[in-house]
């Protein structure tokens, strides 16, 4: 670790100061940024309302490609949502201490991403005003949803994931809200007082809190693996060539972690720069995240190869045609964007210099985000374009409305994240402090 020469916080109080500084009154640039994003969200909302009024006509969806940008974006955001829980739960269980600095940012991303992801199936359905037909609630008609449908599994998985990550996120925030309550002096004090739920940091509270965090981590770990598996079963349980494969669940989970970590980097690098958090988001964090990216990129790359291999080796003509179309058909560009971004662009991270170079990591992460969106696009669109019946083959071109909603989803994500930056500590105070005390006591021993 000799290469790391960044500043180190001197006292826990400085940690409070450094991190809670982010909560100080905003700069005009920040306000402009929020307004810009909010405007984009508004435009997206108009596009959505337009589509709701007219039906799915304004989209590019058609027979036989009935799923397009919306479902792609849904899967993309669900994938993004995986990083937070992975970092906070799985790495927590593995006692990977480096996670402490990034986990708050990652968890907030999880919550925002899963909120956005949960919106997309609704944006996507033909009659959004009838979405409650999917929900099992007692009704006078005596009708229930179809629990055999992967879409209902999805409904449960996504909502469970959303609720559990919000709870996890909130439980982690309680001590930090208390810290903010004790420090902030403006109107937000009242907000923090409510949100801190009377937290005093007494040992009795810490006792229950620690146990809660442990259990939530334990519950979240299988959950996070299940959610993207269930999303992958939306595809894998169908009989569309190119979708109907057993590899989908691990492939999707790895892809989700891959894209999630990339999104964490994409978002935290500017925050680190803007708020001077170099002492907390340290190069070793990027180094570790780079290693995770390498691992998941390899899994994803293996899955790509395996899909083609199985299509060839199974001698299933439908699969063969589907994958030929994927690689060399009408939408070949998407496929090659996906492969170059997801498999080729992370390759330099085998070198430590690249992993510890924040700018390099940032650029790579953006490539990965693009690549992972295209991965889902390729799977959905090319699979549906060339199915069993040659007479029903067709093409799909996304429409302006769909792309507007796609852009608006990114804007909404940014809006929420920017607002969050001002409302809650972006780095988990108590966890960083925990690290500080640990480091201090270790120093004392030696």
């Amino acid at each position: 670790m000799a290469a790391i020469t960044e500043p180190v916080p001197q006292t826990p109080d400085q940690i409070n100061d450094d991190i809670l500084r982010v909560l100080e009154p905003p700069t005009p640039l920040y306000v402009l940024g929020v307004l810009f994003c909010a405007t984009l969200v508004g435009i997206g909302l108009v596009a959505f309302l337009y589509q709701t009024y007219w039906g799915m006509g304004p989209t590019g969806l058609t027979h036989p490609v009935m799923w397009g940008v919306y479902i792609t974006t849904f899967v993309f955001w669900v994938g993004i949502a995986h990083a937070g829980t992975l970092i906070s739960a799985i790495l927590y269980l593995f006692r990977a201490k480096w996670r402490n600095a990034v986990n708050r940012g990652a968890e907030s991303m999880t919550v925002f991403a899963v909120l956005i992801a949960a919106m997309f199936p609704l944006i996507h359905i033909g009659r959004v005003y009838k979405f409650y037909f999917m929900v099992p609630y007692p009704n006078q008609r005596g009708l229930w949803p179809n629990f055999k449908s992967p879409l209902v599994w999805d409904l449960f998985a996504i909502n469970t994931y959303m609720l559990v990550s919000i709870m996890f996120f909130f439980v982690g925030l309680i001590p930090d809200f208390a810290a903010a309550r004790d420090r902030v002096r403006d109107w937000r004090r009242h907000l923090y007082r409510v949100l801190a739920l009377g937290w005093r940091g007494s040992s009795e509270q810490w006792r229950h809190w620690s146990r809660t965090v442990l259990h939530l981590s334990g519950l979240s770990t299988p959950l996070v693996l299940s959610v993207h598996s269930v999303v992958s079963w939306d595809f894998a349980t169908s009989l569309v060539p190119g979708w109907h494969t057993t590899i989908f669940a691990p492939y999707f989970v790895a892809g989700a972690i891959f894209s999630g970590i990339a999104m964490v980097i994409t978002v935290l690098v500017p925050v680190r720069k803007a708020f001077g958090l170099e002492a907390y988001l340290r190069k070793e964090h990027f180094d570790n995240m780079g290693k995770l990216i390498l691992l998941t990129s390899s899994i994803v790359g293996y899955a790509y190869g395996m899909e083609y291999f199985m299509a060839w080796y199974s001698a299933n003509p439908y699969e063969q045609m589907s994958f030929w179309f994927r690689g060399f058909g009408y939408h070949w560009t998407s496929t090659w964007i996906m492969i170059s971004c997801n498999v080729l662009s992370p390759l330099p991270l085998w070198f430590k210099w690249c992993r510890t170079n924040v700018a390099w990591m940032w650029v790579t992460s953006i490539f990965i985000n693009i690549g992972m969106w295209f991965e889902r696009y390729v799977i959905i669109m090319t699979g549906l374009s060339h199915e069993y019946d040659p007479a029903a083959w067709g093409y799909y071109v996304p429409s302006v409305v769909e792309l507007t909603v796609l852009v608006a989803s990114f804007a909404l994500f940014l809006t929420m994240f920017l607002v969050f930056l001002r409302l809650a500590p972006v780095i988990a105070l108590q966890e960083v402090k925990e690290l500080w005390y640990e480091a201090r006591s270790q120093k004392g021993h030696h």
Partner: protein
Amino acid sequence: MPEIDRRDFLKIVGMTAGAAATVACKEPIHHIIPYLNQPEEVVPGIATYYNTTCRICPAACSVRVKTREGRPIKVDGNPDGPLARGHLCVRGELGLMRTYDHTRFKGPMKRVDNADGSVAHVPVTWEEGMTLLVESLRANAGKVFFLGGHQTGTCDALIDQALAALGSAGQRLRFEPYAYEALRSADELVFGTRAVPQFKIGEADVLVAFGTDFLETWLSPLANQISFSDARRDGGGYAIFVGPRLGLSAANTDQWLAPTPGTEVLVAIALASEVARRKGTAPDALRAVLAKYTAASVAERTGIAAAQLEKIAERIANASAPLALPPGVEVQGTNAARFAAAVQILNVVSGAVGKTLVFGPDHNLGELARFQDLSELAGKMRGGEVGVLLVHDANPALTAPQVGIADAIASGKVFTVSFASAPDETSKLANLILPDHTAYESWGDVEPVLGVKLLQQPMLRPLFDTRATVELLLDAARTLGATVPEGNLREQLRAAWGGQSSFDAALARGGSWQNVGATSVGLAAGAGAIDFEPTALAGNSADPVLVVYPSHQLYDGRLARVQALQEIPDPVTKTMWGSYAEIHPETATALGVELGDVLVVSTEGGEVEITAYPHTAIRPGVIAIQVGHGTVPRDLDAPLSGQGTWGREVFGVNAFQLIPGKLDPESGALAWLSTHATVKNTKVRANVIRAQITFDQEDRGFGKAVALSALPSLKPWGAEGDEGGHEKKGDPEHAAAAAWQGDAEHLLIKQYDPAADAGETSPYRWGMSIDQDACTGCNACIAACITENNIPVVGPTNVRIGREMHWMRIERYVEVTDENEVDVRHTPMLCQHCGAAPCESVCPALATYHSMEGLNVMVPNRCIGTRFCANNCPYKARRFNHWSYNWYVPEPENLSLNPDVMVRAKGVMEKCTFCVQRINGAKDVAKRENRIVRDGEVQVACAEACPSHAITFGNLRDPESAVSKVRTIPRAYRILEHLYTRPAVSYLMSVRRVEEA
């Protein structure tokens, strides 16, 4: 679906403003408008059926119309009728939409020439219109000319009487673009009679068609198709097509000869010669001319090998009932009559005359005008010999632009009165428009074939302010002081049909018909002197030959206003909404043309800009364009708002204007095939609106075929040692070989019993079987489905990206074969009502499930539109409502909706229901009689319409039902059954009638 309230129509009988909903603060107030006087035979909610006659084309088939509360909603063949036998063609199925067309003339109009040179039509009252008509008739006494369509029977006689009363007796033309002039002249040349005989396709075991579109427009296409399927039942029959294009008729034959365009006549006469030589049947008078043309002597000029012609001649000579069909319009050149004569000589020497070619019960076309007559009329008009031109049921401005009638009208010398009920090219020029009722609104009679007299009765009160033209002419004559028969048309008809009781009996039956005995004909004296040398085509011989051919769905353009017909894919090209320049891919490469390039095609007749569409069903060196397109937009002068944007666009081009006005001197027919066309590629790309992007089925076993010789050894599905054509289980060698060839057939298939896929106690498991050998791909099923199930027209912009809503489609697959064997397979594809349906398990809302009767039920009102079911349907049988299509259905087109079927809103999925409304209706009846539904009692719309009897529908639980039996025959197979979807629809393989090597 709340948007359109079908049920309100139900209650509002005869009134249009039913759902007049006043919006109160909470819920709209719905009104019930009862009858003022309820007709006795009408029970609201129960359909009433009437027999009448379809008058779209001169074939005039007897039809049975289903009416609900006074509105006709569905047309089907009259089961008792002489021609239709309960079936109907694609045009007839949608013919009602001509009546419900909202852009029809709402009342009389007159032309106003504005100061700026523009022309508009303004509405006038009937009094004013009649005054204008009477004044012009008075001023032009003796110079009145009536240009009508094909017309026979009482109305025909009444028009003659009215003309006589106006002092213009005989100044009349009955004009049809397909008028069989060549055939009539050929019969005169060969047999000495101008009659158009019966061609008994159903009895022919070898059929040779010379560019004859006998399944599309030729003579009586519906009857042709029915008898064609009779001839080919169970692998029987053999058909050969000679012509430049593998059209719908050609695609259903077994062998296709494409001689050099213009030399088809040589093929005909050489075949006659070869057959005569083999059978020794050459009449003395013809010996010389037959000896001149042998297979060898024409081989070079036609490009057809002598051996091939000899093989065909051998087949004809050995046939017990051969038949050659005279040329259709697409190969009708300046030698049309002589070409037809050559075909008739082939019929003479092959022994068809008197057997499959029967004179006596002739087609009643005798009075039909020759094209030449129309040219003469134009001359007369220019010469001032015609003062008033009355145009009724004819559109020469569209279908005969060469003769210059439009110019003559536009010159202002002739006062033109149009009786068109909807805007067309000719009425656009007319000085006065006095709209007629449509055929379903008016009385009439017709005699399409000698001995077959059909009655036509109104099915609904006229929707708009229109008047029957015959009555109107008689009125005008009466006003001018002439003596004409008294009484309205109905009374005239009653008198002509022999009084009330026989009239009523005929009305109930649909008409009266009796057999007319055959008459014998002999060879005419001059038959030996006919010159069979082909005439040269005009233009540069390096350019492609222009072939213009009739439209299967739009006929000559008279149906172009029926949007549903525009949206049904053409059976050959699978294109919709427009016409395309069809060329062979080889020719396209030679010309540097790709799919979608806009070409400028010009001849001495004219020039059009048209989009290129290369495909293989056409001879290289030919460019083919369909007629019937490029008609005036539906909104003539006044664009209507809110009708969607396609209301004002023109689709395709009018290919008639490319035909130079050359005539066949013998018959006076227009020479359709007379020139090469120059083709210029503008390099502009245009959209090609097509339903199918490939005709290659990639060996996926959708359309399967079995060679005739292999048919006897074919084992039924599931039988021991089942091999031929079915799955080849347990044969690893084959599996491996097939796998490497990308053949799907090696995939394992699990056996199952489709009848098991229903509730244990249910007496029914509905199922279907489709005979691909019988299916011609004519689209009648789709048209029937559209009218039965309220399937919306989505318009070209949506269709272009694939959003057509048809619940069934006919997949066309072309197999590459050696020689010139035709292997085009038509696979009607619809919901397979799978026993283990992939669509059901993915629906989150339970909007689709398997009913106890084995139906795959779709409940659109429960659908939330996740569209997963459509993704997961391997047959792609599900259709999604991207827009609220039925919001755009204007008055009175909404009256054509079937009240038994819901109108689907936006955002929901829909699909074939096996006409569950009909199943439920049959169960209502059965339940009242305390029994189960009998076999054949419930008929789905597609099966009912199918003129080829290709579709069998029924109860699989009943082992005696027709569908259960047909499923077990060896040709039966199921599509994609290795996916284990347990489909309820089985297909019968088409039969390749080839000699296997």
